[in-house]
């Protein structure tokens, strides 16, 4: 199971990469994409929307199940990965890079303290 070292993680298997203290990119983890199987549909919010930490922000459907996606941090949505509309399989192929979901202008970088580090997430996965 691939985990990126400097990213932060949620118990719902989302990841967030805090770019420069002001913006962050989020997506779902390798564990999440593997559990969902072939992803066939992604519903993303519109740019400009304000979102609370752990609030529902997107939904992802696979050939097996539909799953709600929650934002790891609060902030304003500044960009969505529009390519996923016609190529949702990018999440299966590259969940930490080409399969990113949302770019946020974060309101409080300190919210990361309620997220897991890569090591913590690794232990969390082992406990499942």
């Amino acid at each position: 199971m691939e985990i990126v070292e400097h990213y932060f993680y949620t118990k719902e298997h989302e990841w967030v990469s805090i770019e420069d203290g002001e913006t962050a990119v989020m997506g779902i983890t390798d564990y999440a994409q593997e559990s969902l199987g072939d992803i066939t549909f992604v519903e993303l919010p519109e740019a400009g929307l304000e979102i609370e930490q752990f609030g529902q922000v997107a939904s992802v459907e696979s050939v097996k199940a539909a799953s709600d996606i929650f934002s790891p941090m609060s902030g304003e949505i500044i960009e969505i990965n529009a390519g996923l509309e016609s190529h949702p399989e990018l999440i299966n192929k590259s969940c930490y890079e080409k399969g990113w979901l949302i770019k946020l202008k974060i309101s409080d970088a300190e919210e990361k303290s309620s997220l897991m580090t890569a090591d913590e997430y690794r232990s969390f996965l082992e406990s499942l």
Partner: protein
Amino acid sequence: MASTLDLKRTPLYQNHISLNAKMAGFGGWDMPIHYEGILAEHQQTRQSATVFDTCHMGEFVIKGDAVQTGLDRLVSMRIIDMPVNSCRYGFLLNDRGAALDDVIVFRVEKEEWFIVVNGATIDKDAEHFRNNLKQRSSFEDISTKAGKIDVQGPKSREALMELGFSVGAIEYYHFNHFEWKGHSLLISRTGYTGELGYEIYCPWELTAQIWELLLKSACRQAGISRVKPAGLGARDILRLEVGYPLYGHELSENITPLEAGLKRFVDFEKDFIGKEALIKQQAQGVAKSLIGLISENRRAPRQDQNIYTDDGRMIGAVTSGTFSPMLQKGIALAFVEKTFAVGGQKIYFGDDKSKNFAMISPKTFFRGGSLKF
């Protein structure tokens, strides 16, 4: 929820484990959902050939005359005119005209019948036969003795021929017997995918050997990609794309073949259990009707989701839904109030927060398969 310890295992269980299959409970059986991936296995079936473990399905044998044994009265379709080596699809009905199961009847000899039933309904069906046959001694449930492997896809014929099974002359919904290592196999040209395909019935203990043979030896010829295994995940998408019903979803003890749009498998010229109720239902008209839905996008309507007219009236619910790789859209089968079962009608599914629109369509979503090749 049954624990996996309670689940029955097919003779291919170890084969699935060694292929790293994702296993899950299905109708009381521990079955492979996928190996490589559901979409890859779907594509392999539409383009080349796959094998499915369908040993969970049940098989009965009835010896004797169709009318004298009482078999004829137990099935909805005409069987007395069936040629030997042909098979026919139809239903076991209760006295309310609803489906106890959907079955395929094979005429093995003039007075020998082989009946294939669903895995989850074996015991119920066997009891129904024992209770209603006039000659109970003529009935045998051989489900635990008969293994079954489906070979499906446009290359399935070549794959079997290369292994020495000369299935080339078998027409659609016909079958033949083949000798293999001193045992007799029954191979029918039937399936659940909308593609050219065969179903192999073999002794339970030979199933794993035949499975390995199909996977290892078949299709070595240039230009033919190897036969690969496919699981129930791909099988469900394949059958939904061609609008085939799944028992427990589009058919049940509360759903009649008339409501499910399957009247062509009911013969009103003969006598059968449930006929009176169906005649009455036909005269009154059905209240609900099974329809197809094509989503406006890739989002799939999901089982049990309600569906609504444009102006918010709830008119029915989804029985099966999936993403269709052939259409690149969500598709579903759903029951709606009869008056709303109109092709082209726009409906939506989902909640107020996220309405997703779809169009009522014919139930055969994909027509380009190799079924009749």
